[in-house]
């Protein structure tokens, strides 16, 4: 949200490197879906810390509310009732920004410095640089950013970069009553997840595992899933997310190629002119016309 004392590793629409010298610890938030009770304390904490208040909506026949992420709801719980191994399971996934190592939003963003990635892994939106084009939405493999109806700027979870910058855990992790949201170095979170996975396997969840999708270079928000083989069960969590090839084409090779091609046309024209000269009306035809006029 705000500029702060975190090293910027990458910024949107910037072709030169950002700070690369200091090595800081890579952080991660680990959401243990198997320990979540769906109380929404994280949603409340997020609202309170970030001073955002969504609309008071309606019940839509489910526990989910607000029904979707918005510029004023940066995290929402998604509730799914499934039957696995003849047992009813209420899968509750806290949805929000995954803070990809290879962020599609940042790749797509045309506004320099509107999206930045800190060296600790947090992908943050700097709304003062945002122009409201929505390319970040186009670029995101998880459908997370939302454009505000009020100011046309993009919003999403900041992983409480302002708290993390001063060594505090994100508000959601702080508020979670069951320890389902853990926060620390990415390495520690992976170790913690490994313990949880072992425990879940002992309890009969053979396919328990960590969700840290490599298609986007890994994420800085990870899940422990009881059914890591079927992430889709958890309200459509993508199994192998990656930046869409269309987005890669658009904001990858197309950019330099098209720029070069246009430069080529411009320069080609110039050199054509100076080498071949202008195409003027020939003296012969001018004379013909003059003759006609003289008659």
């Amino acid at each position, binding site marked *: 949200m705000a500029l702060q004392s975190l090293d910027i590793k990458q910024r949107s629409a910037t072709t030169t490197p950002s700070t690369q010298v200091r090595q800081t610890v890579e952080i991660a938030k680990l959401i243990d879906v198997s320990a979540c009770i769906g109380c929404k304390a994280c949603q409340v904490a997020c609202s309170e810390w970030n001073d955002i208040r969504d609309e008071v909506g309606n019940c839509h026949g489910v526990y989910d509310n607000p029904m979707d992420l918005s510029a004023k709801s940066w995290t929402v719980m998604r509730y799914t009732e499934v039957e696995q191994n003849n047992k009813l399971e209420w899968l509750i996934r806290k949805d929000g920004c995954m803070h990809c190592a290879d962020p599609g939003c940042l790749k797509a963003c045309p506004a320099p410095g509107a999206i930045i990635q800190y060296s600790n892994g947090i992908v943050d939106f700097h709304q003062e640089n945002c122009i409201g084009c929505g*390319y970040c939405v186009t670029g995101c493999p998880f459908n997370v950013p939302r454009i505000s109806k009020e100011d046309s700027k993009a919003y999403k979870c900041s992983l409480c970069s302002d708290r993390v910058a001063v060594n505090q855990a994100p508000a959601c992790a702080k508020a979670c009553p069951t320890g389902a949201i853990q926060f620390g170095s990415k390495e520690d979170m992976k170790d913690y997840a490994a313990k949880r996975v072992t425990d879940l396997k002992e309890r009969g969840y053979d396919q328990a595992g960590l969700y840290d999708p490599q298609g986007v270079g890994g994420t800085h928000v990870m899940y422990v899933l009881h059914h890591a083989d079927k992430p889709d069960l958890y309200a459509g969590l993508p199994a192998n997310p990656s930046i*869409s090839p269309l987005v890669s084409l658009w904001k990858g090779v197309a950019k330099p190629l098209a720029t070069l091609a246009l430069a080529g046309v411009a320069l080609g024209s110039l050199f054509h*002119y100076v080498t071949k000269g202008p195409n003027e009306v020939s003296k012969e035809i001018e004379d013909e*016309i003059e003759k006609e006029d003289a008659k």
Partner: protein
Amino acid sequence: MIRDPKDLKRYNASERANHWVVGISFILLALSGLAFFHPAFFPLTQLFGGPTWARIIHPYLGVLMALAFIVMFFRFKHLNKMTPADKEWLSKAKNMVDGNDHDMPEQGKYNGGQKVMFWALAVCMLLMMVSGLFIWRAWFGFDITLVRMGAVVHAAAGAVMIGLIMVHVYAAIWVKGTIRAMWYGTVTRAWAKQHHRGWYRQVTGK
């Protein structure tokens, strides 16, 4: 304004105005569009009162250009039907580019190259219009795959279109005596006789 009463009328005022509405909106669209396409061009947004204004204005300019283009398209469509002579001209286009236009076949109001340009621009315009709607988030919310395709197509067609217009503008500069046709509507008879002899015969009856 008639410079020489014997000059030939190539475009009337309405056609010229139409062309320049398309032309100006295109230039503004290209400048702002390039700004969103590659960071190197981002400073161009300052021409529009800053990046956010550039983002807001760009699609409305697009609508303006599309409407003006459609009018122009129907005005000139019938003049741009391809004929065997156009094909022959195209097959000899290399000579033309090399500055050797002596044995080019006789051309009507437009030559084969101009007609190809006309249709290529029309196709690009159509692609720009449709893809532009897909990615205009202020008003529309299409399925993410359509939006992504829209982004790719808009960028690609935009780049092609900018290239085509550069060729179009260069051709006008290169072929002396052409630009005045779009400034005040007339060309000299010599110009017409040299570049568009068919049309010259048609309007002069010679």
